[in-house]
């Protein structure tokens, strides 16, 4: 109780301590400076990174507990390569053992059932109650229901595979059962959605796979958006040239119905039939954000968490001490694993400095990078570095802005594997 008051007082006068950070840099034993309890909810890219870096940078005084119901995490990055048989789900599975053994993060295999923002406590499905000084929520995304009709068995075939796992395996099996005269339909929801280039990449690698293994096939992209949402130049080339005759791109296709019995999709751009329908539903923040009942989902449409990108603290004034990271938060940055890792470092640094009574960094920077397969052997990339803009209080692209590679090539293909390995190591080990 005393400590909590102390921390609040420090928070209120944080600016007054701004000189401390530089004066003590490199001299202060971290355990003497940063002392506090942090509960992190969600063991994806954002939650795992923030738990690691709170301990790595904050030292032994940081009491960090990660709450995650699953024993391991399956990477969404590279999961399109599971569809084409180039990777297995087990190769994309990471666990929390290094987080525990090397960084001393406590891991609770449980879910959060309620949050008490006044008493600063979270209740878990295991029955445990955890007290916190700071709570970091990173529950990723959930989906709106699809306008789906049909028998239960047929409806089960309509998958999104947008959270890597059993649906990925189902979609892979459905693709394998296709013949060269069959059509694969991919529906893309209105932005924002997780991994902006991801659906277009999926269309490319599935088209390439059908061409290579079936001798042909059709891929129809039904995009609810008016245009390609990321890496426009490279995907335009892929659709019009590399995968010409296989991929058909249909913009402005808002879905009104999907019939799983007739395997047809009714949209504002027409009705389309396919052998396989891969429907990615409209996104919203993880259920914890939209169903907590404490006002975490305070974006304009009530689907996302608005945050201060200096620390990822909720902008809801009644939620002091709660931070929301990664895909659940509403920022100008893309929803993706690589940048979630960067957001986590900004958040970890801010929390440590708040605990130390210092000031938080006023010009944070983050970056988004992804390698995008266009075929089995050629890869493009998309990257941007974001800098905090004090005028708009948002993260805006710096330098050359959002930049995509000049086409796809095999050199990028090699780099892609180094990127993935190092990104996952920076997050999980």
């Amino acid at each position: 109780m005393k400590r909590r008051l102390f921390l609040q007082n420090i928070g209120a006068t944080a600016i007054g301590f701004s000189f401390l950070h530089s004066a003590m840099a490199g001299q202060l034993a971290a355990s003497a400076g940063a002392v506090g309890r942090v509960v992190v909810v969600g063991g994806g890219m954002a939650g795992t990174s923030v738990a690691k870096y709170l301990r790595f940078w904050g030292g032994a005084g940081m009491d960090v507990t990660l709450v995650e119901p699953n024993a391991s995490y399956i990477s969404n990055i590279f999961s399109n390569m599971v569809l084409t048989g180039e990777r297995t789900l087990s190769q994309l599975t990471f666990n929390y053992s290094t987080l525990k053994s090397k960084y001393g993060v406590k891991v609770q295999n449980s879910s959060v059932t309620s949050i008490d923002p006044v008493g600063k406590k979270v209740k878990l499905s295991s029955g445990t109650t955890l007290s916190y000084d700071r709570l970091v929520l990173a529950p990723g995304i959930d989906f709106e229901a699809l306008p789906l009709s049909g028998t239960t068995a047929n409806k089960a075939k309509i998958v999104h595979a947008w959270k890597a796992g059993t649906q990925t395996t189902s979609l892979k099996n459905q693709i394998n059962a296709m013949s060269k005269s069959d059509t694969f339909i991919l529906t893309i929801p209105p932005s924002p959605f997780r991994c902006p280039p991801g659906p277009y990449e999926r269309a490319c690698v599935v088209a390439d796979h059908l061409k290579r293994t079936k001798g042909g096939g059709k891929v129809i992209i039904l995009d609810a958006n008016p245009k390609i949402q990321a890496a426009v130049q490279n995907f335009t080339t892929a659709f019009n040239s590399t995968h010409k005759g296989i991929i058909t791109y249909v913009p402005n296709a808002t879905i009104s119905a999907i019939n799983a019995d007739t395997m047809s999709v009714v949209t504002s751009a027409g009705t389309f039939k396919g052998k396989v329908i891969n429907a990615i539903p409209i996104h919203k923040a993880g259920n914890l954000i939209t169903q907590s009942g404490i006002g975490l989902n305070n974006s304009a449409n009530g689907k996302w968490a608005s945050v201060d990108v200096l620390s990822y603290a909720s902008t809801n004034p009644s939620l002091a001490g709660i931070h929301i990271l990664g895909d659940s938060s509403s920022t100008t940055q893309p929803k993706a694993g690589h940048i979630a890792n960067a957001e986590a470092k900004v958040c970890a640094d801010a929390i440590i400095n708040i605990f130390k009574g210092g000031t938080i960094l006023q010009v944070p920077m983050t970056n988004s990078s992804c390698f995008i397969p266009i075929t089995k052997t050629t890869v493009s990339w998309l990257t941007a570095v974001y800098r905090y803009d004090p005028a708009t209080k948002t993260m805006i692209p710096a330098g050359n802005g959002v930049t995509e590679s000049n086409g796809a090539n095999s050199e990028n293909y090699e780099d892609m594997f180094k990127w993935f390995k190092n990104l996952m190591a920076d997050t999980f080990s």
Partner: protein
Amino acid sequence: MKKKSFKATSIGALFLVSVSLFSCKDDMMPPEKPDNSIADSELSLKAANIDLPGRVLASNCFQCHGTNGYAGELKIGEQSASSIIGDMNEMKSKNPGANIMNVHARAYTPEEIKIIANYISKQIKY
């Protein structure tokens, strides 16, 4: 000076640990479980070492170049600050669409690049 000897000690200790793990495989020593855990005091010491200005900026490098710059491939750790600054300046002149590092190098001011380079040059493998 202090940091160097600490680094040398850590590498030495790691070497000894790995030697002992391999050598005791078949002899009569009591079985020892490989233990990656780090004592809290050691964690504090390392955390203190990395508590320098610029860690958030520098950590933008870690996703591709490894935590503290020590990836297996694409490692940038153990470079001097001036060498990192030189590399970043060289990247600034490349074609952005042909070189992903150009986009990253151009996003930072010369002062920020100095801070990043200084930070990374002082880090140890973790």
